[in-house]
């Protein structure tokens, strides 16, 4: 039951370039960078080589900070600690057991395993529901403190404050290390570059831009972050391991929090979220400071610190992006034009329209609430709410401000919210499930204040909304997105289809609301919660939304719950009304009956006790 429709307008890929062109660009750049690494030892003096080897390893670590912070929005000071764990794994093994290929492999394995385990624990500690970004920063700050204290307390075993020196380690010539580290650095950078431009990268951006919305699209944001953190910890640890092998020295400074902040500084200066910026920034700054800091030892640090402050305040995107844009403007016009024309012609975005076979049974309530209560301390916000909603019902919840309408929505869509009572979606209890868990039961929710991903494009938002139905690629970007019929209809009738390439921030308010509705519909929910879907919309838009809702209700059998202040709209679309007042359900019945009841009139004119 899937038919394909070809849209005629722009495509959805991130750079607007077809995949094979992008890969060609990455391959050429990677090849060039590898060539530079190959030539390096022939033209550079040993001192510069050793400086650059260190810079390459720090660049890898900065890369991990960029993926965590720039791409996903996790400000972390812990990557230095993971670097230290890797370095000490090598140092401890080679000092106390000695160096053979076997011990080296064992130590490397241990380094990666330990850092991934620690990262999993740190992630568990940091990424719980409702953790603030500030709290995450705190936890990542505590880790390096703990690691350094453990090193200090290790006495002769860890070398305490002076670290471990002069152990046997795999030995390569200076040029050998240069080639080795340089190649790893270039390849990892290329992988990261492809990765953050893939669909999976968009998913990480979505988590950064709006974690709440992501959860209500069914993305398990905590797990996504924990897994990312584990892999980034492994990479940082690998860099630290190699660092210890190259220099045959490890010290507490390689794990501490100041080192962690240094990495963040490099990433911020280079350009967070760009991959190339942090890598180039790290190599450039490490190289420059190796020379300048010997001439101007104190002033150099002041210069870096001052530039850092200025960049954070006036140029949060970092130094590379503006430079890059200036260069791009100087590209020959012919080249720029071909890139553009490719963008317009090569791709025909395909929107799949699949009709969903309804699996919901018509005999059990789609949504059932039994004595749901919510308290804030002594304040009772919801008191014993009982509602049963069958598939195909369109229920309006009305009540004056402060009646508890939005609180009720929150209790239905997040299992941790309510203080008592049971809620079932399609017959299954929501227990204490997270929003993403409840989304998986078939519930879709829109917010009172439109909640979207500002930096993404419309097409990318639509793809994200299909999250439960597809696995985003870690390499590729899809050139099509499958939408259910209902979502497709809204897309067409609002004219959003012509703006698939537009960045969400640039859309007018009405379009944003429509996009949110389309995204929620793309989840193919059987229960739809809408919080003031028509707020701030024009009359024409409101009529359209009303039409769509009644259509969803009658044709697809969705159970729809909406909060609304506009009585005309409610009368027009709803089949049943529930009235909340001071946290109690005081009326529940057919629309006409409720609207005309004396009680409702009194509540809205403020005379009821």
């Amino acid at each position, binding site marked *: 039951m899937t038919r394909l429709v070809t849209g005629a307008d722009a495509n959805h890929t991130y750079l607007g370039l077809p995949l094979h062109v992008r890969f060609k660009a990455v391959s050429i750049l990677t090849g060039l960078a590898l060539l530079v690494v190959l030539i390096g030892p022939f033209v550079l003096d040993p001192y510069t080589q050793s400086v650059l080897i260190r810079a390459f390893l720090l660049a890898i670590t900065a890369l991990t900070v960029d993926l965590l912070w720039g791409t996903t929005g996790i*400000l972390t000071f812990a990557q230095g600690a993971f670097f230290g764990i890797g370095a000490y794994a090598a140092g401890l093994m080679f000092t106390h057991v000695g160096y053979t290929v076997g011990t080296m492999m064992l130590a490397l394995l241990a380094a990666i395993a330990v850092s991934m385990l620690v990262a999993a624990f740190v992630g568990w*500690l940091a990424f*719980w529901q*409702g*953790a603030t*970004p*500030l*709290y995450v*920063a*705190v*936890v990542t*700050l*505590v880790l390096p*403190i*703990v690691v350094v*204290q*453990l090193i*200090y*307390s290790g006495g002769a075993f860890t070398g305490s404050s002076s670290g471990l020196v002069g152990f046997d380690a795999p030995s390569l010539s200076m040029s050998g290390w240069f080639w080795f580290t340089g190649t790893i650095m270039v390849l990892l950078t290329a992988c990261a570059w492809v990765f953050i431009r893939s669909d999976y990268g968009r998913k990480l951006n979505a988590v950064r831009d709006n974690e709440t919305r992501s959860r209500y699209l069914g993305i398990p944001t905590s797990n996504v972050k924990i897994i990312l953190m584990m892999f980034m910890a492994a990479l940082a640890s690998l860099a630290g391991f190699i660092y210890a092998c190259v220099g045959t020295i490890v010290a507490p400074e390689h794990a501490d*929090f*100041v080192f962690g*902040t240094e990495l*963040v*500084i490099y990433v*911020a200066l280079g350009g967070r979220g760009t991959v190339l910026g942090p890598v180039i920034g790290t190599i450039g700054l490490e190289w420059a400071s190796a020379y300048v800091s010997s001439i101007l030892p*104190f002033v150099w*640090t*002041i210069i*870096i*610190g*001052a530039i*850092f*402050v200025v960049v*954070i*305040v*006036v140029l*949060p995107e970092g130094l590379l992006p503006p430079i890059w844009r200036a260069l791009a403007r100087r590209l020959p016009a012919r080249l720029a034009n071909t890139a553009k024309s490719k963008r317009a012609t090569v791709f025909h975005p395909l929107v799949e329209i699949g009709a969903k076979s309804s699996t919901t049974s018509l005999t059990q309530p789609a949504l059932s609430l039994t004595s749901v209560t919510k308290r804030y301390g002594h304040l009772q916000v919801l008191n014993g709410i009982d509602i049963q909603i069958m598939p195909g019902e369109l229920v309006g919840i009305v009540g004056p401000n402060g009646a508890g309408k939005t609180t009720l929505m929150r209790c239905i869509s997040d299992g941790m919210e309510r203080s008592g009572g049971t809620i079932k979606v399609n017959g299954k209890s929501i227990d204490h499930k997270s929003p993403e868990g409840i989304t998986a039961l078939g519930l879709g929710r829109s917010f009172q204040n439109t909640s979207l991903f500002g930096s993404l494009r419309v097409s990318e938002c639509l793809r994200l909304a299909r999250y439960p139905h597809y696995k985003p690629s870690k390499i590729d970007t899809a050139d099509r997105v499958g939408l259910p019929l209902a979502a497709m209809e809204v897309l067409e009738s609002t004219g959003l289809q012509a703006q698939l390439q537009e960045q969400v921030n640039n859309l007018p308010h009405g379009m944003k609301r429509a996009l949110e509705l389309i995204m929620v519909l793309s989840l193919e929910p059987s229960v739809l919660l809408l919080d003031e879907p028509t707020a701030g919309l024009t009359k024409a838009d409101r009529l359209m939304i009303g039409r769509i809702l009644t259509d969803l209700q009658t044709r697809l059998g969705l159970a729809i719950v909406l909060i609304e202040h506009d009585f005309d709209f409610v009368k027009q679309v709803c089949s049943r009304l529930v009235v909340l007042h001071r946290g109690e359900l005081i009326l529940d019945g057919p629309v006409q009956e409720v609207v005309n009841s004396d009680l409702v009139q009194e509540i809205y004119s403020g005379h009821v006790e």
Partner: protein
Amino acid sequence: MLYLFLDIITTAAILFIVSSGLLIIFGVMKIINFAHGVFLTIGGYSSLVVTHFDWNPWFSMPLAFVVGCLLGSVIERTVLRFLYHRPLDAILATWGLGIVLGQLIIIGFGREVQFAAGPVSGAMELFGDFYSKYRLLLIIFSVLVAGAMWLLLKGTRIGLQTRAVIMNEPLARGLGINSSRVRLITFSFGAGLACLAGAFITPLSSVDPNMGLPWLVSAFMLVLVSGNSFLALASACIVLGGAQVLASTYISPVIGGLTLAVLAALLLRIRPKGFAYD
């Protein structure tokens, strides 16, 4: 036993003094001032300057406070006011400022560890035990700091405006409170308090360019578990500071050094409000 008790109380007092400047800034501006550590250091060097010129050691305290206020107001006007909507960037920018200021201190005073004269020295006899007079004095200082904060917040017009901004900034602005002015005053006051704290703790240890860093981490953790309440801060200082003293005494100083940070992080995981009670 008495000795342990006094250790706990004085440690809590020191932590309270060191954290209060950070707390007032966090409470009003919802940003963490990572230059707090360097402000403490500047307070330490104010004492050193006083010692160097052979002035009365008591003078180091007002000097540190004034230096901090001036520095704080300059930083607020030039850097921080652009970052109120980007709290994570504010952490980074203040950390960058800390690097610059720390380096200026190294250029001015050198890297080496130095000693400043304290206003009071020696130990006094207390129920048969001897205890450092200065540490006991710090209890009084912390009570004075808390009292002064209380008086300022509850008894003055700017205090009332500050409380309004803490509770609901948009509403406060709607009522005609100049929240930009409140922020300026708060930040310079918080910075002054931080420098003052630096001057207070200097007689306990030595002065060096990195002396503020370990305190920054403790203060940061304490503030996060206290929200914006001074009462919560006081209880956090007693509980977590007490745990730190007990762990240092009975387990090992290394574990003691970790106790505060680890306990605070775990506490926030279990109870996001920490010591705040509302």
